[in-house]
């Protein structure tokens, strides 16, 4: 079974007016699709729609051919996990308890976590190098550590599709880099289909396989970083002058404003 994520002519929004419409895209297993676009264009809304926590106004989300709309919350959460920004976390839960909550979709109403669930949670923590933090309250952890704990929680959900919403927003350069390398590894090793929203176009150039550029409530273009990260395209979407030069080391696009 190939669990690709597909959005078909999806319209997303909160009131009557959709924020995004006619969104059609797909993410293959093992692939990282980056969602980029100006502030307020609807990147986070797209994540909420793609995981089913925000009902679509129109269109469909399919994972492995299964329509998310037809699935109950727990079944949905076995298909797609979400790593949100590490803000407003309840600070006194210890990291292991947080990761264990990733097992929620596999537990019945009155069921408690089994040793196997603990095992899965600990493995997820080992892979995100958070195992040393297991007993620490998440409120005491740094932004980068919290974000890794949330990735471990998503991993513990054991889903074929993972969505990440601005996971690097509050991280310094080194932690941004480390985090995206981790995501890269997970997509490769677990054959995860990964959709990630990012602000930093240079991180997109380095870590994404494909890029979807959003503007004016629509998907403007989807393609490889080299195809999307061009001065003309970006200048039009972001409304400023943009230069793109090859990275001195690997030749990937390097985006500069001004």
């Amino acid at each position, binding site marked *: 079974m190939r669990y690709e994520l597909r959005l078909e002519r999806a319209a997303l929004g909160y009131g009557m007016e959709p924020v995004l419409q006619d969104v059609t895209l797909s993410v293959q297993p093992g692939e990282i699709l980056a969602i980029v676009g100006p502030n307020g264009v609807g990147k986070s809304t797209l994540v909420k729609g793609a995981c089913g926590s925000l009902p679509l106004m129109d269109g469909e989300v399919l994972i492995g051919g299964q329509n998310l709309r037809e699935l109950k*919350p*727990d079944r949905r959460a076995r298909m797609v996990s979400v790593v*949100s920004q590490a803000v407003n*976390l309840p600070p006194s839960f210890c990291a292991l308890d947080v990761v264990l909550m990733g097992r929620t979709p596999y537990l019945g109403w009155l069921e408690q976590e089994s040793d196997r669930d603990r*095992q899965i949670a600990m493995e997820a923590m080992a892979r995100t190098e958070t195992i040393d933090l297991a007993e620490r309250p998440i409120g005491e952890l740094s932004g980068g550590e919290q974000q890794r704990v949330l990735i471990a929680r998503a991993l513990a959900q054991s889903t074929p599709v993972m969505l990440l919403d601005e996971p690097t927003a509050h991280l310094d350069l080194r932690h941004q880099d480390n985090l995206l390398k981790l995501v890269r590894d997970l997509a490769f090793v677990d054959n995860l289909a990964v959709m990630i929203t990012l602000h930093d176009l240079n991180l997109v150039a380095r870590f994404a396989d494909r890029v979807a550029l959003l503007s004016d409530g629509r998907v403007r273009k989807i393609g490889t970083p080299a195809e999307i990260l061009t001065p003309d395209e970006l200048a039009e979407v972001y409304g400023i002058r943009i230069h793109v030069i090859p990275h001195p080391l690997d030749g990937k696009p390097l985006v500069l404003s001004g």
Partner: protein
Amino acid sequence: MGGSRTNASLEPVKPQGVRRYLPWIWSGSALIVMLFVSVAVGPVKIPLPDLGRMLFDLLPGLQLEADWSRTFATIVYQIRLPNTALMALAGMALGGSGAAYQGLFRNPLADPYIIGVASGAGLGAVLAMAANWPVSLLGMATVPLAAFIAALITVAIVYAIARVGRSTPVTTLILAGVAVSSFATAMTSLIMLLSTDELHRAVNWMVGGFALGGWEPVLVSLPYLLIGLAVLALLGRQLNVLQFGDEQARQMGLDVERSKLIIVVAASLVAATAVAFSGIIAFVGLIVPHVVRLLWGPDYRRTLPLAILVGGSFLLAADVVARVILAPRELPVGVITAVVGAPFFLWLLYQTKGMGRVW
């Protein structure tokens, strides 16, 4: 990644040995001690050996020779034991529902009194009493039923007003609670004034006295409380997940709407039952869950049952103080909980300033 690879084993970490059970041992023994103290304290002094033997006599399989006085037996079996049981149950209900409301609203200042549920339930109860409803309807006691329905309506109104977008900020929750609560209290006063013959009893009831005596209120409220408290004690895991907000909880696969509905119904059921039989007792549902969280951490699977146990002992302790502090006069227990609780509430509010949330 930051730091070197760890060699920590993948063996699940579990709390070791007896430490894991300490909270249960502490709160369980505190409740037993307070039950005993509450039965022992009163205007008539009953010798402790007699009292002890009278209590042991209740245990199944033990038949002691009843050489204590008939008066003592009546006082213990017909007055002190039922009053103590009802007080303990009310405390358990308030502690449990307070913990549940705090988790549900993700707000440390939520408690059945502050969010207006208690006053709403009180209005329902007084309405039922004033309308002279039959004591039972289809086998259910009508006063707690009316209190329960009014409590649900109140919590729905307060939540709808307090909700800003997808969260319930401290300020709007308190303001909505105060407003709705004042309205319910005003209506209650109005009804009580219009039915003057019941006024004295109703006033007593409002500040935490008992409308009825003997075993009847205990037996009538027991099924409501057992069901509601059991549901709350079992849904700690769902409350834990809800601490991450509706959005993340949904993404973790929790049926958020259903969980919240079940929890709010169970919490309102027990809070309303406590109000119907013990009057409006403020701040127990606020203080107890806080103390439990401070002592034993944030996990609702522990917080909820522990808040139920500690709520029982706390209210019993407050009641004992209320009975002895101006002896032979007995104060309503609500006076004591308010005197302790109001400063605690202000301290919490001060702590919350600028944080939005305490825990």
